[in-house]
């Protein structure tokens, strides 16, 4: 049944976070220190969600590291986890991986995209040549060597990476789920296509008329939910909206690195308490960060 009107897909951050349940496969869009849907990430931690398989970005950033550090992850699929110069290797990723406390699905960036495409195409796998002659197939059971049916050349079959819920952050979307990134949107489209459902947090909700005035700018049409979240990528950048908060990221890295170096959980737990457990929602989180810091993240 319908009331005859077009339905918007805007929902609140709590409702969106409620879609994510123990054991699901979720993906997180963006790239390194940019464009992560942080209100949902923090809510996942606050909700105590466990045993997630996390498909990070092609170069995942410290948002994935944070989820690992908070104990939400069972398996991680990402060709890299890094905070660039702020933390060349994710410190929680290092800590959990080195102890065998998470399963790491080791793959290269283009194996990764072939796996996501296989899912989007309803295919069991897609082949790739990169990685032939390396150790990838020895340590990743989702890769299988085989001979190309046409020429007999040796290739890797990359098993489909199917996603339950893709989580993306973008500059803007209209109420009907038409997303417009500033910049390219990195690999976000590939997550969306490989996923059953997609949730996008946006810095701004724009009118449908604005989308129709610039349809070339629409990067993804028809996501399943839009969550309004100004500064929703903080402490990471949102292209054209604000830069990353390097000081805050360093605070996180220091906390996570303390555990890596000495096994001391204290600083990490304090970080969680201060920025994730106590602030119950995005507005409370931003309040804790404070306007002074937020307004200092000059976009140009």
């Amino acid at each position: 049944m319908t009331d005859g009107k077009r339905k918007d897909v805007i929902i609140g951050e709590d409702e969106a976070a409620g879609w994510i349940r123990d054991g699901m496969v979720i993906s997180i869009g963006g790239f390194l220190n940019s464009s992560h849907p942080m209100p949902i990430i923090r809510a996942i931690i606050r909700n105590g969600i466990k045993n997630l398989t996390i498909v990070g970005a092609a170069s995942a950033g410290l948002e994935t590291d944070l989820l690992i550090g908070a104990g939400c992850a069972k398996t991680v699929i990402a060709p890299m986890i890094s905070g660039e110069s702020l933390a060349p290797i994710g410190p929680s990723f290092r800590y959990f991986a080195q102890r065998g406390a998470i399963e790491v699905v080791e793959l290269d960036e283009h194996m990764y995209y072939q796996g996501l495409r296989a899912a989007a195409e309803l295919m069991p796998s897609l082949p790739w040549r990169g990685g032939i002659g390396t150790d990838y197939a020895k340590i990743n059971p989702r890769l299988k060597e085989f001979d190309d049916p046409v020429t007999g050349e040796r290739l890797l079959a990359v098993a489909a990476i199917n996603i339950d819920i893709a989580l993306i952050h973008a500059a803007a979307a209209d109420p009907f789920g038409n997303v417009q990134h500033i910049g390219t949107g990195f690999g976000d489209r590939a997550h969306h296509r490989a996923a059953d459902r997609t949730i996008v947090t946006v810095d701004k909700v724009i009118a449908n008329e604005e989308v129709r005035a610039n349809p070339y700018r629409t990067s993804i049409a028809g996501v399943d939910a839009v969550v309004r979240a100004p500064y929703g990528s903080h402490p990471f950048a949102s292209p054209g909206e604000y830069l990353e908060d390097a000081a805050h990221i360093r605070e996180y890295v220091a906390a996570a690195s303390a555990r890596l170096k000495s096994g001391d959980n204290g600083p990490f737990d304090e970080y969680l308490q201060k920025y994730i457990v106590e602030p119950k929602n995005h507005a409370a989180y931003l309040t804790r960060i404070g306007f002074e810091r937020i307004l200092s993240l000059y976009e140009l």
Partner: protein
Amino acid sequence: MPPDNDYTNKELMAAFVASEIADGEAVSVGASLPVCRAGILLAHLTHAPNLKVQISFTITNLRNVEVLPAFEFITDWRAGRWAEFLYNHDIGPDLYKRRRQAIFFIGGLQIDAYGNSNLIGIGSDFHHLKMRGPGGVGTASMGTNIGRYYLYTNAHNKQTLTERLDWRSCFGFGDGGADARTRLHLPGGGPRYCITPLCIFDFEETSKRMRLKSLHPGVTLEQVLDHTGFKPVVPDHVPTTPGPTPEQLRLLHERIDTDGVLRRP
């Protein structure tokens, strides 16, 4: 250690990178390797005006940009202001045919004598690595498919330049031999040189083992051998890596590296 001269070792390395880039090629200007970034832009502002520059997920030409600020993060959208084209990162697999004229720089936690490299980690048990690496990013695929690439490291020591990798995440010339790559039907040409703070290595034609190509000014053969975990091929005569010209230094100082990243110790 740069010699008594008016340029630093990093500026010398950047000049070497520049000399390797031909006009019209496609290159990626990243953030994590300032020397390679500077070398690419140096080529662009001198002999390579038609470079196809990938920067912050855009493709453009930076020839007319007066000062090229170095952004700390590859995602910094401020570098998108010069864009002529934006590419979605997920179409990467479909760009290799068009990337035959592209070049790339690949680093590693470990690099072996045959130009293979490791970004996975250190330690023999994958599930309990002693040091978990960042992951191989796109190196396996780029190394397989791209026209040619350059190995680059800031750490010329026996841990990094090692006879045996703990894990091979990028195939250079495998276990060696002139047909190491063609045997596996890898379309790309493989690594051309390995660039370090002490020297440049190339690969001997029949064994594909690293061979000393030039020593940076003031560096001795013994220094290199002492700090290299494998035995490179050493020719009778090893020339000195040429330094940057005054014009190159001027461009570095005034347009490319105004913050002096390459001049820091």
